[in-house]
């Protein structure tokens, strides 16, 4: 019979990992890699009949012996199956006769079942084209995924249980804090009463109040940590160094057809944010850019210091900002897309996804900065994130800190501020501070009082708390702006309200109030009024 093809040893190994060559006496003369390091006793010189029997020998006593079956099946298309006597191994293939009068048993391993565990099989035991590999792996994957799903269900159930326990603990802790706060409050009241009496010791009273307020401050910090409300431990973070050391990591958010470059010119300028917050924010910007560049391209992050803020109105002599600028050369977004992206009334994109850049702006505003997005149709998008540079390293806090004043811009007339705050002592304090700094400040304890005050007088600025009984500061701001469109709105709250309820031109201050940020917001509002008066 003329051979159809000639096959090399290496090809034989690749196609039939468990092949066996035997001579005319059925003695093993060669074997495939499957038998290496496997205790099958299949070695050159061994008698094939001592190692294997026909597969159906187990069930059929009349199966022919191998010295009959092999010559009979040689060069036929019949499937030939062998069962290893020493190991639980099944082999299958076909038999060829060879020119030297022997036989080639072209065999591959047949998994006993399609479960990986316990069979001692490896991918290399199978030929490259053997469908057993994906079958075994897929079933293995399915079993693993089921185990993972089971574990996830258990984890979620445990998480729910832990959450309930945490809620219980938080409630208990809350009661302790209420108890402590009540104690400190009574100390403050007592000493205020003593101070009011002429016979009391002013120094002792002042010290007691100071101590009590310090403890209350600690309790507030505890509460903030407990609620995860803000990262109270954030230290000033050098922006350039942080971006540079995370650049490779940021690039990991991009496919291979993107390039990411960084040009840092802000030197040692630092901002008071968590490293995670900053990197998460940049990741959001990059993810947005990636979405806007279907064909890939280049993204460049650059930084620089600026004495100009995010809006013209916010420019403050002496103020210092770090600007993180992200530009990309994709097709860009149009002005309408930018408008939709920043419109708080639009909850999400038509495809249901959130706007990553809106969350960037929300984040920037929460720490006293802002973000500006400029559409450059067909040439890209320009995103500038303004963050106030931390000057903490220059400003050591005195042990007995005097109340910082508000650096107010002097203008032709006094700015009239309507202050709305339901906590009467906080209201008094803010009004007093504003008056000391030359503003005309009018107090209102709630939204109704504020509306009444507005009916009886003119104001330039509405400075209002957000969380108030009956009507919130946000509702009040909407109402006031509808009636008095020229009034500037500044909100203040311990919590960030829902961004979708806010107007983009409103200012948002977090409590406890940072007087420098209050100064900044008032000056910005003042500058805006001055500009509109000039126009």
């Amino acid at each position, binding site marked *: 019979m003329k051979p159809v093809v000639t096959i090399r040893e290496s090809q034989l190994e690749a196609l039939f990992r468990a092949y066996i060559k035997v001579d005319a006496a059925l003695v093993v003369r060669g074997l495939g890699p499957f038998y290496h390091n496997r205790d099958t006793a299949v070695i050159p010189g061994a008698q094939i009949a001592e190692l294997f029997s026909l597969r159906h020998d187990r069930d059929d006593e009349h199966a022919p012996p191998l010295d009959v079956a092999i010559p009979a099946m040689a060069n036929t298309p019949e499937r030939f199956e062998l069962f290893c006597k020493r190991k639980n191994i099944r082999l299958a293939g076909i038999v060829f006769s060879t020119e030297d009068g022997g036989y080639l048993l072209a065999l591959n391993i047949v998994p006993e079942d399609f479960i990986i565990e316990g069979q001692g099989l*490896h991918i290399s035991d199978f030929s490259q084209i053997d469908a057993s590999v994906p079958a075994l792996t897929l079933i*293995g994957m399915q079993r*693993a*995924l089921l185990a*993972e799903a089971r574990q996830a269900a258990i984890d*979620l159930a445990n998480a729910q249980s832990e959450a309930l326990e945490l809620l219980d603990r938080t409630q208990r802790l809350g009661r302790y804090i209420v108890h402590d706060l009540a104690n400190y409050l009574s100390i403050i009241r007592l000493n205020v009463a003593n101070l009011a009496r002429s016979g009391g010791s002013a120094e002792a009273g002042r010290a007691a109040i100071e101590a009590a307020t310090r403890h209350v401050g600690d309790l507030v910090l505890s509460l903030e940590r407990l609620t995860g409300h803000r*990262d109270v431990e954030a230290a000033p973070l050098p922006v350039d160094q942080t971006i540079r050391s995370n650049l490779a990591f940021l*690039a990991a958010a*991009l496919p291979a057809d993107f390039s990411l470059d960084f040009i840092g010119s802000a030197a040692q300028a630092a901002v008071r944010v968590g490293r995670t917050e900053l*990197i998460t924010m940049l990741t959001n910007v990059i993810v947005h850019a990636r979405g806007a560049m279907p064909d890939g391209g280049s993204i460049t992050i650059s930084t620089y210091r600026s004495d100009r803020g995010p809006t013209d109105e916010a420019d403050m002599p002496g103020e210092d900002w770090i600007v993180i600028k992200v530009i990309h050369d994709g097709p860009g977004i149009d002005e309408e897309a930018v408008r939709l992206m920043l419109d708080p009334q639009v909850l999400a994109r038509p495809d249901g996804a959130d706007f990553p850049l809106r969350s960037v702006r929300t984040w920037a505003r929460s720490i006293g900065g802002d973000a500006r997005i400029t559409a450059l149709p067909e040439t890209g998008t320009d995103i500038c994130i303004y963050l106030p540079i931390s000057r903490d390293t220059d400003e050591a806090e005195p042990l007995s800190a005097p109340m910082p004043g508000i650096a107010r811009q002097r203008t032709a007339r006094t700015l009239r501020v309507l202050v709305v705050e339901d906590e009467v002592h906080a209201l008094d304090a803010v009004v007093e501070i504003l008056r000391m700094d030359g503003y005309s400040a009018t107090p209102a304890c709630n939204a109704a009082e504020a509306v009444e005050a507005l009916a009886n007088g003119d104001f330039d600025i509405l400075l209002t708390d957000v969380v108030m009984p009956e009507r919130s500061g946000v509702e009040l701001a909407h109402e006031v702006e509808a009636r008095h469109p020229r009034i500037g709105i500044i909100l203040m709250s311990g919590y960030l309200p829902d961004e979708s309820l806010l107007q983009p031109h409103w200012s948002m201050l977090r409590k406890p109030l940072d007087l420098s940020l209050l100064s900044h917001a008032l000056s910005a509002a003042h500058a805006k009024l001055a500009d509109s008066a000039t126009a």
Partner: protein
Amino acid sequence: MYGMAHRALRQMMLDRLGPSVWAKVERETGTGPADLISLCVYDDSKTIALISASAAHLGMEVDEALRVFGRYWVRFAELSSFGPIMDFTGQDLVTFINNLDRMHRSVVLAMPDARVPSFTLIDETRERLLVRYRSDRTGLETFVIGLLEGLMDRLNETGTVELVDRPGTAIDFAIHLDRS
């Protein structure tokens, strides 16, 4: 990435710094149990945020944390439900690397959203293996170094791994084995 990566990172942080630090990482990144489901696919930015936050708590640069995580990942996978599949892939370094792409092809069949890398053993001597790595993700070089170190741990080898070349979009890593 699949949630399994998040679970592995959580376990590494629990092992190294305990539950309170991991709770901080979760809080800082807005992560909860719903972000830790092995079979769910999450945006890479989530994974990046988690690793970045973890690196800060570990006192490491992100690249170093990635390397540590890569090494840990191998250990985590072999102890997880995927352990038998790793056993199936190979019991020595050369076999394992040679079979990785075959194993990954099956992974993609079972998990269609998986973006698996490719590893090719392009040169082999007794003391040095040259591995070509290709991926549509970038910036994970140190993670790959950690993975190869983890594989050496698993397969009872010692040595070092270094990035030696970047031919085109691929990256070549040399594994120097202590086999003297």
